[in-house]
């Protein structure tokens, strides 16, 4: 580490040393320059936000308009609606059976999180504690983690057949599949996290005569709390927005998820873009609201996940 740093700083230090010492007395221009650059960066970043917020603005504006207010020029699409009306939303909710698909989405995401946290943390713990000592555990660890490279496309068609044979061509099947799809990443996160949990705790509990099972649930599981949050957030973001799995596993059943409903009702929307956009907005709304209230936690969770992974 230290060697690296020396290497890095050396070539830089050679040239501008002299000029810098000359400038040193007058510090003021520099802070001004600093201020200016902060201003420029801030300005750029704020302008950049337009690229993010513009599509959302369009969605909201179109969702609130009636079809007659839509014209083919820019003002027709971009202007604010003349009358404030929620008719499109009411209609979209009726057409897509909003509450039901919302319920399904919540159930699928919630259950996937719970199953993932329980099953993956156990496996991550057991593997993380043993893989450096026992070859078999190490093999299992790599076996599961290598699942990260398996594209869904190859599993898709066999899974359609298999889930139906097992009677799992429904929400429960989708939940189980998510538990499997996120397993490689989550197991890696959990077992990586075990490096930060000192063995001393378990050893103390061991001496007290507690079983390994009990030690896990009373001591280790609560200690993994930050990782649970990360796993829950990553699993939730992935499952909430996923279309392909419910599309192929549950197609034909009356149950849809919120994103899948948008796909299924494309024909019903026809060319009524206002209705369609109202429905899109409704589909985005739950996660938007959650995001507004918990953005710190969500960003933090994703960051830890990415750094550890």
């Amino acid at each position, binding site marked *: 580490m230290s060697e690296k740093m020396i290497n890095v700083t050396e070539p830089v230090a050679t040239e501008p040393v002299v000029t810098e010492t000359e400038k040193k007395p007058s510090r003021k221009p520099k802070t001004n320059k600093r201020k200016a650059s902060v201003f420029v960066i801030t300005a750029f970043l704020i302008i950049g936000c337009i690229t993010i917020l513009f599509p959302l603005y369009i969605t909201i504006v179109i969702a609130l308009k009636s079809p007659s207010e839509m014209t083919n020029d820019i003002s027709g699409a971009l202007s604010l609606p003349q009358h404030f009306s929620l008719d499109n939303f009411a209609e979209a909710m009726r057409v897509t059976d909003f509450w039901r698909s919302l319920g399904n989405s919540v159930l699928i995401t919630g259950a996937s999180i719970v199953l993932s946290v329980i099953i993956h943390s156990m496996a991550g713990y057991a593997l993380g504690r043993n893989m450096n000592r026992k070859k078999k555990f190490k093999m299992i660890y790599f076996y599961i983690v290598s699942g990260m490279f398996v594209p869904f496309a190859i599993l898709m068609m066999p899974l359609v057949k298999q889930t*139906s044979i097992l009677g799992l061509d429904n929400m429960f099947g989708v*939940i189980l599949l998510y538990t499997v799809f996120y397993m490689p990443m989550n197991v890696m996160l959990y077992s990586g996290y075990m490096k930060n949990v000192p063995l001393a705790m378990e050893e103390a509990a061991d001496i007290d005569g507690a079983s390994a*099972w009990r030690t896990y649930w009373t001591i280790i599981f609560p200690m993994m709390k930050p990782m649970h949050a990360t796993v829950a957030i990553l699993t939730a973001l992935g499952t909430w927005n996923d279309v392909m799995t419910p599309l*192929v596993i549950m197609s*034909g*059943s009356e149950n849809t998820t919120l994103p899948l409903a948008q796909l*299924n009702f494309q*024909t019903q929307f026809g*060319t009524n873009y206002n209705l369609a956009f109202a429905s899109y907005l409704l589909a985005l709304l739950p996660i938007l609201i959650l995001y507004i209230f918990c953005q710190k936690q969500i960003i933090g969770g994703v960051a830890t996940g990415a750094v550890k992974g």
Partner: protein
Amino acid sequence: MRKSRVVISLLTAAAISVSTLLSGCSADSGKDGVTTVTMLQYKPEAVKAFEKIEKLFNETHDDIQLKIESPNEAMTVLKTRLIREDYPDIVGIGGDMNYSNFLDADLFEDISDIEVIGEIKPAYLKMEKELELLPKEGTYALPYVSNAAGILYIKEMFDENGWEIPETWSDFIALCDEIKKTGTDLLYLGYKDTWTCLAPWNALAVGLAPSDVCSSVNAGKTTFAAEYSEVAEKIKVLLDYAEPNPYAYSYNDACTAFARGQSAMFPIGSYAVPQILSVNPDMNIDSFTFPANDKEEDNVLNSGIDLHFSVMKGTKNKEAVYEVLRFLFKDETVQIYLDEQGGVPCKEGDFELPDFLSGMEQYIKNDRMSDFHDHHYPSEMSVDAMIQTYLMDKSNNSAQIFLERFDKEWTRYNRDLIARVKKYEEGQK
């Protein structure tokens, strides 16, 4: 001791959650004495008609509960269900290659003993027979409605300007040039959805190529390059009269544009009319047969089976299924469908043809009709996308490239079938 208790409680908790989830998904299988018949039909735009039919059936039948599903992307849904072996009792699909493949895979029940067959026009039953990849004994589908494709036009616009319905290709081009001079857009194509490219393609192909071209090619008697060159040439001419950049707009967009009077004509099938009318209910639409030839008598109307019903093999309630089929073929039920969706009924009888088909009536009455060519194209070959590619290709020899590709891909995608046909024919000898 304590440990096992934890394990047991966890297991029970898991078991309970599993069972609640599972039961939540299959709650509707109670009620004694009532047979449930499920039907999946592939036309999502006909959902209203089928809701009505479903309601009427259930009101008049205490012992049978009919459930009709009309999902979006129904073919994918149906195929996914076939992969899953989760069959509905009845499927309502079109008379196309998918049907041929399903039939070939032995998925359908022989229903030649149902009496309504006697009421169906023989021409359509013959059309069904032609869809069999290898000749097969029995009846496997009941044709319900057929559609007709050609050109839809706005009647007022034609009347006001004194434009005449063209009967030959040169008349048609002359008319297009005339309309173009007035500054009106005349064709709206909506080629973003690839399948829309097939509408003018089929309408031209029935007039310009023999109806058995696919089986002739399979038998090695001809090539598509020879049979389709004129079709390819003429479909490209249409682009000169279309909206700028038709690949930007979808079928939905095209329907809306036509409904708003943004174009005088729309080369599409009668199946588009309900959607167009939903945008502009007061519109006066009429139609005419695509004038593909330079002699009127060579023109043929493009008409095929839009919807027919088949019974899935292994259905447990054949009697109830037959009752549903009989109900569907009652005159009143057919009329409900026609009122909502339009189309040409396959059943004999005095049904009112919708106004928008009056321009095609003569062809229908005189049986000058031929099935959609794409009903014989394998779907994985994506001929629609190939046509779109060809239309977008601006090079001079684009037609040659396209037709060569057509022949090459055809033999590739159909080689198993070609081999089987050969074997079958040798067996016949």
